[in-house]
């Protein structure tokens, strides 16, 4: 039935037919519902290939295929030979490059030679006629379907699944309860501690010295000349429990501007020291390190999504997808002349999160 409505059939003998779409013949007076389906145009006329007509071309194609196979053999052997002849020398990156390049060339040749040869063989030498292979229907025969129903009916009768409701219901209950231990286990994969508290605090605290990244040596205010940019970590970062996690939150960029260029908010007037300002290096968009500082325009560019912050104007966003200015670290100078933090950041650093109030 499916075959009939398609207008396509396997033909009388599979492998021989070039199907033609002809209108079905019906007796006169029978109503025919016109189908809006595109008619099957059938195969294009058979066109012999050059290799079918010219034995010389056929022989040339055969030779090409065998050359491709031989090339594959050469490639595979070459790969092994190159692997032995140009070994990876520890400490010499150049040798890795050479070894990989030659090994890759050899293996590529080995695989592509077989692939291209086989396809070329099939396309130009193997028999070239068109044929249709019909799919069988997916619906089972009526007897198969009846047998399947019988199996279920017998199973139900012998086990008493519908009749013995106590057994059935207790089994269903047991199945429902089985996954509960898994749920309990997966629940414990969540952070043991409330992460919001961790997001709101960094290693910075009152009196913590600003130190150079990566040496960890403290920085004197006098070291920071105008136009300088220092990459800063809190002193003692290496001794903390999770130095990398702490660094990811506490990284700071320290810059000194001409105090005349600095336009500070009145409530933050004492957060800087003689033109030295410290801002979080973590972008408020999605947390990339913002450190492309231009010392004349005082623009700070985030390389990930091109957010720009104006350091001269309390790091407000002047371009890009970031929504909030970079948090400023209030700084002061201790009695030995070293720069210290006045407190932790007054707002969470980095990108927004659900529980963030600001």
């Amino acid at each position: 039935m499916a075959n009939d409505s398609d207008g396509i059939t396997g033909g009388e003998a599979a492998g021989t037919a070039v199907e033609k779409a002809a209108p079905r013949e019906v007796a006169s007076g029978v109503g025919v519902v016109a189908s809006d389906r595109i008619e099957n145009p059938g195969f294009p006329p058979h066109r012999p290939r050059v290799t079918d007509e010219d034995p010389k071309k056929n022989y040339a194609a055969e030779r090409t295929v065998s050359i491709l196979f031989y090339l594959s053999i050469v490639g595979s052997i070459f790969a092994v030979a190159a692997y032995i002849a140009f070994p990876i020398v520890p400490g010499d990156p150049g040798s890795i490059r050479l070894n990989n390049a030659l090994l890759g060339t050899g293996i590529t040749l080995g695989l592509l030679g077989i692939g291209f040869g086989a396809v070329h063989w099939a396309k130009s030498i193997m028999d070239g006629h068109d044929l249709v292979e019909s799919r069988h229907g997916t619906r089972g025969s009526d007897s198969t379907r009846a047998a399947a129903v019988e199996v279920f009916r017998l199973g139900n009768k012998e086990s008493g699944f519908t009749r013995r409701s106590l057994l059935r219901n207790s089994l269903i209950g047991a199945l429902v309860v089985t996954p509960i231990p898994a749920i309990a286990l997966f629940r414990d994969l969540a952070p043991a501690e409330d992460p919001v508290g961790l997001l709101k605090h960094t290693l910075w605290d009152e009196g913590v010295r600003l130190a150079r990244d990566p040496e960890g040596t403290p920085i004197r205010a006098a070291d920071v000349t105008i136009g300088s940019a220092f990459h800063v970590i809190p002193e003692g970062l290496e001794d903390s429990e999770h130095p990398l996690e702490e660094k990811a939150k506490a990284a700071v960029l320290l810059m000194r501007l001409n105090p005349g260029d600095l336009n500070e908010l009145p409530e933050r007037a004492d957060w800087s020291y003689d033109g030295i300002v410290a801002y979080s290096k973590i972008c408020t968009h999605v947390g990339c390190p913002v450190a492309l500082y231009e010392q004349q325009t005082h623009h700070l560019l985030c390389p990930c999504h091109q957010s720009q912050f104006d350091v001269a104007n309390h790091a407000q966003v002047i371009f890009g997808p970031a929504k909030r200015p970079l948090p400023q670290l209030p700084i002061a100078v201790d009695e030995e002349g070293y720069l210290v933090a006045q407190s932790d950041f007054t707002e969470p650093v980095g990108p927004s999160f659900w529980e963030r109030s600001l």
Partner: protein
Amino acid sequence: MSKKRTAKTGRRSPLATLALLTVGLATTGGAYALFTGTATAETTAVHQQLVDDGEKLFVANCATCHGMDLEGTETGPSLVGVGAASVDFQVGTGRMPLQQQGPQAEEKPVQFTEEQVQALAEYVASIAPGPEIPEEEYLTGKGDAAVGAEIFRINCAMCHNVAGAGGALTEGKYAPALTGTEAVHVYEAMLTGPQNMPVFNDANISPEDKANIITYLKYLEENPSPGGFDLGNLGPVAEGLFIWIFGLGAIVAITVWLTAKSN
């Protein structure tokens, strides 16, 4: 003093020793003073000559924008206190004299001879002291490349790219590629912070660490990328473009060939 007496005692007059010492001291001291005096005078003269030459060059080539007394004008910043290092970098890489006003001064063929650059540097440094041209010992590239690489990654890589291939900044400005840059210019750039580059003074990155950075950059230049073609080390843009055009192009071509009928 008779000869006999001398032979007998084996002693000269104590005064003779004193006289000899005086003569000796006077001769060596006088000669030293004489020679060093000449040398200093010569150095000063040569130096003065350089400063004078530099002043002429400055007036002829730089004063339009930077002012007759280095005080700066609307079109160019003051050069008071920028130091010899800054002049050697800006003029020695061809960035100055500026070709045209733009987002930033671009590297171009050097406009002056080495002597002229030196004269300009001496002149600018003679007006007010500033960072000096670095010592040769830091420019040899014989430091620790691994330490240099770490400091480079933290302080330089965000703009100049981890492989020193350069990168874009805001509003048409860019951090130039560092490949092929002379060690002395790399050092001077860190020391003086040309244009929008921040200053990395010796208190921030010590001279030894600057030498390590130079070593790292040299190492990058001399060693090919172990990963094969680096495609300019520009990262995902260049690599993505390559694989989308050539990789996908090859796949499309093979697919077309697979399904095309043999002629």
